[in-house]
């Protein structure tokens, strides 16, 4: 049993944790929810002893020291956890630190690889694996130390639906074998199979109860950051009508508690605006076997989602559309003219990747200045972009690297918008964001599209964007398999399966509801 009683913690000024108490039993799965900055990660760092509470205490099976051996910790981004360049060596890292014999280390490596179902990856290079495989390797590396408890810090954030499912199966088996699991999550589907849900807010435990109670309570759902989440809304309707959350999240089981009319309540908005023409025609690109696209033609007006498994050419496509790479054949035309670098805005998930000036003002001004605009025009462009993205002018003299994650993202986007690009490409913009931040980004994108600018979004989190999107392009092996209208994709799981993806939960649920109505 992990017992946190009355723990406080502070990094210097102000309490990050304010008299928090929490327990996780053996074989129990507890979900920890709350906004970014609510103290979830700090609390989880107390559990394995990497942080010590300033007051109160943390007991793991009655002990207060050597907690790292008892509590394994898996991070959000496996690339920040993997130490070695070979899988075998990576999984052996933990047991080798425990002073075990060579034979015992190797035995544990095999055992952990088997438990995660990745025995065949034993001798592969870690950098060549997909994100999902890397996360399984990271988990195996922790399991090889035979922890009694596991802390999972948003382990699904960077994974697609199928990989998330595989990780979830492994965790389920572990819980079944008696390992206690504390899972930090931003995904309402994490509630399935959990014994308890704990919601943090401002360093305190704001709410605690069973997942079903959470879904039934509007207040608890909002505190957990699920206020604008359509999956949570659907689950909450089903939970009120008696849905049990003990098992896996199966769309058909949830659909049994819903009727077709409920689908309207999940939300399906449509943007109506004059779209600027943004077209890719017969585009081809080849660099070795990994980075090739062939005969790609797309109509990118409005908000286009680009979906496909890893290695399908999504990132290459994003760069070609943004004009930072040139296709070998074919064209990308915006307003009838070929795109070139600087005419199409490009933004990545981590805002830090695109900030490089000393002050916020200079950073936003970089694009207009590079274009050779006069200082007066630059100033006007900076202020307009800052206002559009809600960057306060009081931040102009700060260094962009001193800002909080949310502020940094606004500044980075303001820098892109200030270029007056006219079209935007986002590459995996929401990975690792909490519910409110994702909703905010959706609003930003919505604003751009409403303004008439085409936006292309490459993502593995299709579910939440389908309601906003105009069309969806499915990619596989460097070719566009299909481009369909978003409302069609929103209830057609088979389109996802056809390119080797698993459909988002919401898509499956809509299909169940619509299919059910036809049978009736």
């Amino acid at each position, binding site marked *: 049993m992990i017992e946190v009683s009355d723990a406080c913690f502070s990094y210097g000024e102000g309490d990050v944790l304010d008299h928090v108490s929490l327990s996780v039993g053996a074989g129990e799965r507890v979900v920890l929810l709350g906004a970014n900055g609510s103290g979830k990660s700090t609390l989880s760092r107390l559990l394995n002893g990497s942080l010590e509470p300033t007051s109160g205490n943390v007991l793991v099976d009655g002990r207060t020291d050597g907690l790292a051996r008892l509590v394994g910790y898996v991070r959000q981004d496996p690339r920040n956890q993997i130490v070695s360049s*070979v899988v075998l*060596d990576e999984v052996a890292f933990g047991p080798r630190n425990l002073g075990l014999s060579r034979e015992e280390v190797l035995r544990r490596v095999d055992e952990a690889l088997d438990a995660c179902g990745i025995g065949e990856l034993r001798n592969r290079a870690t950098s060549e694996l997909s994100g999902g495989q890397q996360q399984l390797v990271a988990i195996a590396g922790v399991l090889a130390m035979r922890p009694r408890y596991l802390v999972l810090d948003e382990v699904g954030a960077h994974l697609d639906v199928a990989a998330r499912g595989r990780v979830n199966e492994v965790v389920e088996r572990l819980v079944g074998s008696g390992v206690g699991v504390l899972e930090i999550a931003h995904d309402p589907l994490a509630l399935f199979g959990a014994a308890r849900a704990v919601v943090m807010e401002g360093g305190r435990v704001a709410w605690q109860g069973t997942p079903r109670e959470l879904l039934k309570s509007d207040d608890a759902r909002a505190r957990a950051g699920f206020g604008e989440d359509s999956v949570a809304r659907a689950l909450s309707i089903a939970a009120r009508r008696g849905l049990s959350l003990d098992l896996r999240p199966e769309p058909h089981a949830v659909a049994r508690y819903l009727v077709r009319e409920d689908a309207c309540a999940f939300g399906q908005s449509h943007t109506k605006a004059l779209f600027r023409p943004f077209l890719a025609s017969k585009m081809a690109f080849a660099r070795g076997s990994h980075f090739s696209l062939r005969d790609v033609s797309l109509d990118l007006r409005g908000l286009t989602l680009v979906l496909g498994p890893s290695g399908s050419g999504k990132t290459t496509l994003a760069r070609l559309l943004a004009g930072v790479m040139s296709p070998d054949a074919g064209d990308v035309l915006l307003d009838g003219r070929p795109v070139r670098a600087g005419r199409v805005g490009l933004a990545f998930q981590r805002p830090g990747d695109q900030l490089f000036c000393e002050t916020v003002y200079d950073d936003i001004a*970089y694009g207009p200045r590079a274009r050779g605009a006069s200082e007066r025009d630059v100033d006007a462009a900076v202020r307009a972009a800052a206002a559009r993205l809600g960057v306060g002018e009081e931040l102009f003299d700060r260094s962009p690297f001193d800002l909080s994650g949310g502020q940094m993202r606004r500044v980075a986007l303001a820098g892109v918008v200030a270029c007056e690009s006219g079209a935007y490409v986002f590459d995996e913009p929401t990975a690792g964001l909490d519910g409110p931040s994702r909703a905010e980004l959706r609003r930003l994108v919505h604003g751009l599209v409403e303004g008439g600018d085409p936006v292309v979004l490459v993502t593995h989190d299709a579910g939440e964007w389908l309601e906003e999107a105009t069309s969806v392009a499915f990619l596989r092996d460097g070719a566009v398999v299909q481009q369909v209208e978003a409302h069609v994709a929103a209830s057609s799981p088979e389109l996802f399966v056809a390119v080797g993806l698993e459909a988002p939960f919401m898509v499956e649920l809509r299909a169940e509801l619509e299919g059910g109505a036809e049978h009736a």
Partner: protein
Amino acid sequence: MLRPRVPGAYAPGSTPLHRLDPRVKLMMLLVATVATFAAPAPLGLLMMTVGLAAALVASRTSPATVLMGLRPAAVVLALSVASNALVLVGQPGFSPDGLVRGALVVCRIALVVGFALSFSSTTPPPAIADGLAALMAPLRRVGVPVGAIAMSASVALRFIPLTVEEVDRIRCAQRARGALLDEGGPLRRLRGWGQVLVPLVVGLFRRADELASAMTDRCYTGEQTALLGPLARRELVVLIGAVAWAVAAALL
């Protein structure tokens, strides 16, 4: 995002050299390097060349890869041959002796590069680190943190692909904002790299912090169980053979 094959980068495979214990390979590389510089021309060098041919065959490395590996140093090597062959001081002219001397040095360097490439392309980075740790083990007695050194080497090698990826992403984002990174004179290009470096370094420090705490989470203290077992007899035989051949070449 485009990763050209770097000569000498580890290439997975199962050649005889891939299967050989990293400690044996490391020792052989060390011995071969010393012998290459000690061996007299032409017979000793010929013996070393035969040795390199054997290593290339045993690792299925093509001689072209060795030439690729020499390319970055080509200018310096050409200059050194030229400066040996041309006499500028006193009586200016051409010196055949100098030419031979210069050519021999280049030969030796090419041989060593060849040995190093056949080692590095058949040994994964963690095995290199393990091999280093094993060979440096005696230094532990005089207080050298052998485990930590080997671990740093291994982590550094692991970070190379991540860094390449990161640089590429940052450059793309900056070019999309109108930064002209590949145009203008050398000074402008240098400035362009400067603005890539800021976010890169910030990003790498954040990553390093995160990795360090991930290592602490997994109980890393500096000392680890050695993963390499005792050497097999076959491997000892290979090692002794290689040492004998190198000594013979050096003493010819």
